[in-house]
Structures are given as structure tokens and as C-alpha cells.
């Protein structure tokens, strides 16, 4: 389908495709097998100026928006979601500063993130606070001109590899959802350390670690926005980055479809290619229908966000949920089309199937997304009757 991309958008997509084809596809199986962080790809993405895509030009970025970022995440995910999540997680860590940071913070942190010199990460999840973010135990206590952080963040993407962390901590437990605040914390700060690297089912080239704060003192200037704005910072950040997870789903589904289609035209059984069997054709057609529908939805959402729409929690939840459910289904179908070969690590689809599962879980499980969608539907409807 022709999405009528502008010349710049075509260029961005082409550049991301080149990186995927030349720098990611040849190494993805090895990165997965060795659970190795993709520094070489990160270097290529920084040289290509792609880390600064969504960062305003005055802070060293390219000044593009959510849609262009979606195009890059999609292309990278076609090749490997371990790579694309490492790229996207840096945006997740940077957006709190882009959206709510004060001028000094923007000047201090954004240029290094835009150039790819430093990766960023976002720390919200804890052992007892996943879907229910109000369960956060990490505290930040004001002490003169400092805050002192204590607690542990869990399963933080880019943990240990990133230099700059946006972290949500409780500043006043009595204030409920207005008692959390967002902070920027640099790697190397005393009292800030990392847990072991987690062993995962998929996206194994990405790094997932605990962030451990033990009497970690940071200057009060590291507060993002105002005290009590932590959940707003987190929710607005997730709203704007959620189409990126949808884009991971679209890219992964496309990658799986491409492999399955090529295979079906080469594999012969009963004296003919398996693509000549209607049983296979219908699976391929369904994979294409779902992938294209997911793409159209993710693109429309990203374009709406860039267009200036203010309320988009429901739409970004719809895009994320649909596209990641599609990725799961399409990658399972791809394994089925490749049969025994699909189950082997020699072919890329079993990895895609393992990678797809996390898309339905992280950045808000698809069940939580459905809560958001349903509550918004009911809210919209209650005004009418």
C-alpha cells in the first residue's frame, strides 16, 4: 500500500532498511544466540543520525516526529526486535526530558542522546509495580539541595548499557498518584548500581537489568518537571512511544511474512511448490491482511500525534494492542508454513516468534491496553446519554 510518504520520510525509511539489511540481518542470529548487546548496530544508527530523529533541532536532533520514528522502528524490527527495542528504549528514556524537562536539562542531556553518543533508558517497573504502577516502592527523599533515592527498578531495557536514566520514584506516599516524581540519573552516580543481566525468551540481544538505588544522592536539579508529576510524565511518555511498540509488531510481522512467502515458493512437496496449495495461500493472505491493517493503524496513530491531537491514549493503546497481537499470530503462522525448518534456529522465524511474545507484554500488557480502551469508550459514551 502506498502511504504517500514525503521525500524525507522515504529517505529515512530507505536508510533504516539499509542498516537492517547490511548491519542487522547478517548478525541477528549470532546476537540472539550469544545474548550480545548490538553495539555495532548502535554505532551505525548513531552515524546515520537516527538517534536524534525525534529530538528538536536546537538540541542537536533532526526535529522529526513520532511517525518518522515509527518508520525506523518498523524497518529495524523487520530484521530484529532485540535491536529495535534497544533503539526505541533510548527514545523512551529521552522523551520525559523532551516533553517535561526544563531548558538546562534539555541542553545538558539531549545532544548526547541525539548523537547516539549516550543511550537513555526509562525506569518505571518494579517487582510489585508492573501493570499497577501505583505499587512503586522506590522513594526519593528531599534532603536540602538533593534527593536521596532508595529502591530497585526491575527489567529495565538498556539497563547497564545506557548512560542516562529517567526514573520514577515516590516523593510523597500520602499524595497517592500525585506523590510520584520523575528524575534523571546518570550512570556512575554513587549509590546507583545494576543487577545481573536477565536471561530472556526473546529480544535476547537487548540488555535487561535491575537498577539498584542505595542512598543515591542526586542534585535537586535532576527532578523532571515538578514534584508530584511522575505519573503524568510516565503516562504521557508511554502514550507517545506506544505506537513505536506497534511499529515493532508491524515490522516483525512483515519480516515473518517475507520469510514465509519466500520459503513457500521454494519448498516443494508432492512435486510442486507449497505456495501452490490453497491451504498455504490462505495463511499467507491472512498474514498480509493483518500486517497491512496493523501498519495502517500504527501509521494513522503516529500521524495523528504529530498532527497535534492532544488526546490519544485510547488510539495509541488500540494501535499497540492490534499490531502486537498481529505480530504474535503472524509469526506463529510463519513457523507453521516453514514446518520443521521453521522450528529450527537455522531459520529466522522461531526467533521472531520468541521475540513477538514480549510485544504483547511490555509497555503495558495488552490486557491493560484493553482496560484503557474500554474505560475511555465508557467515558466517551457517558457524556452522550
Amino acid at each position: 500500500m502506498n502511504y504517500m510518504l514525503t521525500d524525507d520520510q522515504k529517505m529515512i525509511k530507505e536508510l533504516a532498511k539499509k542498516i537492517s539489511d547490511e548491519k542487522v540481518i547478517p548478525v541477528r542470529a549470532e546476537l540472539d544466540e550469544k545474548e550480545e548487546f548490538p553495539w555495532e548496530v548502535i554505532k551505525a544508527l548513531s552515524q546515520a543520525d537516527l538517534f536524534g530523529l525525534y529530538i528538536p533541532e536546537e538540541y542537536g536532533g533532526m526535529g522529526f516526529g513520532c511517525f518518522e520514528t515509527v518508520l525506523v522502528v518498523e524497518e529495524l524490527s523487520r530484521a530484529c526486535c532485540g535491536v529495535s527495542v534497544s533503539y526505541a528504549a533510548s527514545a523512551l528514556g529521552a522523551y520525559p526530558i523532551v516533553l517535561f524537562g526544563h531548558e538546562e536539562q534539555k541542553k545538558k542531556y539531549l545532544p548526547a542522546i541525539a548523537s547516539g553518543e549516550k543511550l537513555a533508558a526509562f525506569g518505571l517497573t518494579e517487582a510489585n509495580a508492573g501493570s499497577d504502577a501505583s505499587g512503586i516502592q522506590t522513594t526519593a527523599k528531599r534532603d536540602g539541595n538533593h534527593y536521596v533515592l532508595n529502591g530497585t527498578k526491575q527489567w529495565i531495557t538498556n539497563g547497564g548499557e545506557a548512560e542516562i536514566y529517567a526514573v520514577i520514584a515516590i516523593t510523597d506516599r500520602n499524595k497517592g498518584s500525585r506523590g510520584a516524581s520523575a528524575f534523571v540519573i546518570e550512570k556512575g552516580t554513587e549509590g546507583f548500581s545494576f543487577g545481573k543481566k536477565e536471561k530472556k525468551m526473546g529480544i535476547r540481544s537487548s540488555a535487561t537489568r535491575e537498577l539498584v538505588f542505595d542512598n543515591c544522592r542526586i542534585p535537586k536539579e535532576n527532578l523532571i518537571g515538578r514534584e508530584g508529576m511522575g505519573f503524568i510524565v510516565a503516562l504521557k511518555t508511554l502514550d507517545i512511544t506506544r505506537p513505536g511498540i506497534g511499529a515493532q509488531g508491524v515490522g516483525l510481522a512483515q519480516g515473518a511474512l517475507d520469510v514465509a512467502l519466500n520459503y513457500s515458493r521454494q519448498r516443494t512437496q508432492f512435486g510442486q511448490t507449497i505456495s501452490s496449495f490453497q491451504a498455504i495461500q490462505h495463511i499467507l493472505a491472512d498474514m498480509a491482511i493483518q500486517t497491512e491493517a496493523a501498519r495502517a493503524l500504527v501509521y494513522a496513530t503516529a500521524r495523528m500525534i504529530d498532527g497535534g491531537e492532544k488526546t490519544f491514549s485510547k488510539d495509541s493503546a488500540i494501535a499497540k494492542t492490534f499490531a502486537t497481537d498481529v505480530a504474535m499470530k503472524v509469526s506463529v503462522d510463519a513457523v507453521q508454513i516453514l514446518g520443521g525448518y521453521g522450528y529450527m534456529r537455522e531459520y529466522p522465524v522461531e526467533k521472531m516468534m520468541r521475540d513477538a511474545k514480549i510485544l504483547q507484554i511490555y509497555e503495558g500488557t495488552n490486557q491493560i491496553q484493553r482496560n484503557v480502551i474500554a474505560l475511555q469508550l465508557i467515558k466517551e459514551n457517558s457524556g452522550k446519554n
Partner: protein
Amino acid sequence: MNIIVCIKQVPATTEIKIDPATNTLVREGTESIVNPFDVYALEEAIRIKEEFGGKVTAITMGPPHAAEALKEAIAVGADDVILLSDRAFAGADTLATSHTLSKGIEKLGDFDLIICGKQTMDGDTAQVGPEIAEKLGVPIVTYVSQIKKIEDGHIQLQRMVEDGYEVVETEKPLVITVVKEINEPRVPSLRGMMRAKKAEIPVWTAKDINAEEEKIGLLGSPTQVVTIFVPEVSRKGERFEGEADKIVEQLIGKLKEDKVLN
């Protein structure tokens, strides 16, 4: 460091089709790319600039659409580009090509280093680099796989030879030709691609570079192509079938018979 990189636009395939009627290359429908070895040359130039500062100029001789190759050079970081394009340049062999390129380079002025790919994937002669050095009267080091040191006008290079490598030290200015082992080329940058899109490519004609008519194009080319043909494949395969043990024996027997094995 003032570095000049010579590049060439070539068809993006090694399976060249030849029109049987005219015996010329069929270029229609074939995408054009920058000659792969020249991409390594360009990358090395950009790396030297990043380390020592200076300027990278990419130069090519070709028809107007060769400007696309120069845009790719801008996208990866070339500061300046020059397209040598003139009907009078057409039909050039390596001698006329190197004459034309060296006249263009003379017009560009002083340089420290000229980098070329070891050869093109269409012509495959590997002659243009050395010929440019000859015409400009500077040293040439071919098949360079590593630049080991650049210091006070001296340059130490490692070059690939048949059974190993040589380390050569010489002085600037000079010409080098590079092999693919020298680096891993980067992808272009978005800023570079945007700059390339807007860039106007300067075109120099034969007159602009004061090229003498009898030394360029067909007139300046002593090489005469008598005929171009697709060679017949004379090799015949032989297929052994059956149990692995037996066909391995058969194969070894055959290889001994043909004196491949003793």
C-alpha cells in the same frame, strides 16, 4: 589532509549482458551503483579526515547521471565533489580516463593523498589508479589493506601481496589503491543524505580542465576493442551418484587420473 577520492559509477551486477547485434553492454534496466572498491576508498578518506581533519573531494568522469554516484559520496561525508562530463570524454580507455582525471585533479590544486579502489567491477583493469600517479608524477602504492601511520608528511601502509603483506613507507603526496580488507564502509547519515539531495553537482568539461583533444575520449584511447563476446562455457560437470563411500572412491580416482591429486 587534503584527500581526493576517484570513484566510478558502474552497473549493479556482475552478470553483464551484451547486446549480440552491437556487441556493446546492455545498460538499460540495470541499476547503477558506486563501484564497490571505491566505496572502501571513500570510507578510508572520511576516516582519515575524522582523525586528522582536512577535506575530502570525490571526483568522477562519466555521463550526467554519474552525478548520482557523487551524491552518494556526499551522503557519507565527502565535502566537495566534481563531475567531469563532456561528450568528448566518451569512449575513453584507461589511459584517456586517467589523463582526464589527472587534469581534473590538477585543476583542483594541491593534495596530500589520492585514494582509488583497486579496480572497478565492470572494467576490472586496475590500471587507472597507477596511471593517475604516473601522470601526476607522484608515488603509488597499490592493494593497500591498512594505513598504519601518518606522521609529518610520512605515511606507512600495509599492502596485500600474493603470499602475505608488505609494509611500505613513503612520503606525501601520493596515490594509493585500496582493497576491501581496509575497512567496513558506513551507511550514509540522514544529514548527509539531505545535503546530497539539495546539492548541485559542479560539472567540468574538457575545456574547463584544459584537456587536449587527442588525449581524451576515443581519440586518446590506444586500446581498440575488436570484438566483445560471451565466452562459451567449455567446462563440463560430471556427476557421481550412489552410496557415499563408493562415490568418494570414484571421485578420488578421477582426481588422481586428472593429476589433481597424487
